[in-house]
């Protein structure tokens, strides 16, 4: 075989190292808050609560960032799936009132687990329809995606109003998940503990799926050149549908938890979260799962710290956080190498 002299070629280039600085930012922020807050127990309460809130938001945001990162689809109708999940929680918990009111924690968890599964399932199923009817024709066209998914959201919200009415539908969370665990003067709401567990499970699952399996690669490749992936012998349509369904399902899961947290659901519950979730995924780097995780934790912590230290500013804490992060890293904490734009 014909060889070109390769003696002088540079050594194989190392893969990019994992970037720890955003995590350091997170830790630094928490440490900085400690002296400002003064009391260690207050600090711990706020920090734990903030992290848990961050994880709930992460679950909701993960679906959106997943769909954007893999499929390049910006789903402004994401909130609809959150609302769906929350409404499913009302239905399921109402029909499982035996389990809900049982003093046995495992029965409570069973009820919540069922609600989560149903919420994910229904949101996923509606996501399937959403993808087929609305999103499919506008792959690759950002502006149209924005418009169409918003249209879908309006229609969905109105349909929810038809089904459930416009007023607040209350959810009663199970006995065992109310109240707080006390460690000395530090309080951690039980429900937040559950949310933390679920959130971490989602994170680990997603990271494994995306980075350790071929599936993630395939979908990313499919966004860039769909024909080529098909020419390599893969059925990309199924993968895309699967991704969208998964994204919607995650929103549904987040919605169940959010509804339980809020203890009540309105059709607008998802739409009200839109800006928050967008901020989280922008901070994270649009499309990066781990980025949205760190972004969500930051948002959770900053909200609690400013809420405690300077409640007046809490209103703008998210925006300020976004601006600061973007000044530091204009493409978010974990920028996703992006095709064209």
């Amino acid at each position: 075989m014909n060889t070109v002299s390769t003696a002088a070629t540079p050594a194989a280039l190392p893969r990019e190292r994992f970037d720890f600085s955003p995590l350091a930012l997170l830790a630094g922020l928490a440490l900085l808050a400690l002296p400002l807050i003064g009391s260690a127990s207050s600090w711990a309460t706020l920090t734990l609560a903030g992290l848990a809130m961050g994880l709930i938001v992460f679950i909701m945001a993960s679906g959106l960032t997943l769909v954007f990162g893999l499929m390049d689809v910006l789903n402004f109708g994401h909130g609809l799936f959150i609302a769906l999940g929350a409404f499913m929680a009302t239905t399921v918990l109402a029909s499982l009132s035996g389990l809900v009111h049982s003093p046995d924690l495992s029965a409570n968890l069973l009820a919540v687990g069922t609600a989560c599964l149903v919420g994910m399932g229904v949101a996923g199923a509606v996501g399937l329809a959403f993808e087929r009817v609305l999103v499919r024709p506008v792959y690759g066209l950002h502006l149209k995606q924005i418009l169409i998914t918003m249209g879908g959201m309006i229609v969905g919200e109105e349909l929810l109003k038809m089904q459930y009415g416009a007023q607040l539908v209350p959810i009663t969370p199970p006995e065992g998940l109310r109240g707080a665990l006390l460690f000395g003067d530090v309080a951690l709401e039980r429900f937040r503990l559950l949310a933390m567990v679920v959130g971490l499970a989602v994170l680990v699952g997603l990271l494994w799926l995306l980075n350790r399996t071929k599936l993630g690669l395939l979908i990313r490749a499919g966004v860039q050149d769909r024909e080529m992936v098909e020419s390599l012998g893969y059925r990309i349509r199924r993968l895309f549908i699967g991704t969208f369904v998964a994204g919607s399902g995650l929103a549904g899961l987040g919605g169940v938890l959010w509804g339980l947290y809020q203890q009540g659901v309105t059709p607008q519950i998802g739409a009200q979260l839109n800006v928050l979730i967008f901020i989280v995924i922008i901070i994270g780097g649009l499309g990066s799962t781990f980025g949205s995780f760190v972004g969500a934790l930051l948002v959770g912590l900053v909200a609690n710290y400013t809420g405690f230290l300077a409640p007046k500013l809490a209103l703008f804490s998210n925006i300020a956080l976004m601006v600061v992060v973007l000044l530091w890293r204009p493409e978010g904490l974990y920028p996703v190498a992006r095709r064209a734009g």
Partner: protein
Amino acid sequence: MLKTLLSHDLPRSRVLAALVVITVLGLLATPFLFPGTKPMNVAAKALVFIVLVASYDLLLGYTGIVSFAHTLFFGIGAYGVAIASHRMGPGWDAVLLGAGAALLASLLLSLVIGLASLRVKAIFFAMITLAVASAFLTLASQLSEFTGGEDGLNFKVPELLRPATVFLDEPWFGVDVDGRLLSYYGLCAAVTVLVLLMLRIVNSPFGRVLQAIRENAFRAEAIGYRTVVYRTLSNVLAALFATLAGVLLALWLRYVGPETAMSFEIMLDILLIVVIGGMGTIYGAVIGSVLFVLAQNYLQDLMRLAQGPLADVPVLGAMTSPDRWLLWLGVLFILSVYHFPTGIVGKLRAPPVSPRSPPPEGAAAGLGRPGAGRTRRS
């Protein structure tokens, strides 16, 4: 003469020309053709939206920038007049000062937004503006000292424009000749001037560069256009026109509130009108606004008429209830995005397809390029 007024950008389609003429005449004759408060209010809203939407099209259709902060400038204009009139008392000095201050504020703000964030990727810009707009909306309801908070501001306009000012004792062709009528025709005149001005800008050498940047910013840079300068300028111009639209709105409504001038819903309406009318054409803004505002105001009435026979059918009855008009607006929204990929004007103007040259790859793909810094060579 007409050509110069229209900056040589003629409708280029008989049907479109007819539509434009009908629209203009219809708006001009509304007080006489459809007497009553509601038709005049609807027509006035359509007029304000023409300016607002056309100014947004300057950004979206011509420059390819997706911004969600456009209502911010609309709101600044409206609040400018409202706050000035409220604090200084009604009068032309208050109107002028309010409008001037609002223009200045918009100029500075759009300059900052443009310079600070037009360098980031298009989709980032869109989402950042969304967050900024929501922050300002909150701010407007927080600063209740100035803005009246959630409740907004009610204020009085100069004497001349008030309904109580009557010019002729007798109605003229069945219409009261009062301050309201004067306001309406003042609005018509202002809108005409602003629209013609924007038509001129998009047909100037500058406007052509904006389109080039939208098409291929990388190439525009490589032939010597500093895209940041052009993008920022286009951002500023769009903001100023939106501010003027806000001024007009405030003068007509004599009320301003956060929901009325700055809400995300209005942003959505603007986006939709641009798409329905056709991006990248000022005529699209004119026709789209009128159609949309009509639909928005009369859809409920129409549904009330249509519901009669369906009222008792279980699901359909609920779906066609006039209270669910938003549902159908949403459906219309979706359908129009699908079926008018190039908008009404695009559809009417579409040139006959020449047999040999292949169609531009995804002519509708124009929508798919939200502009800023999209293409980068490998």
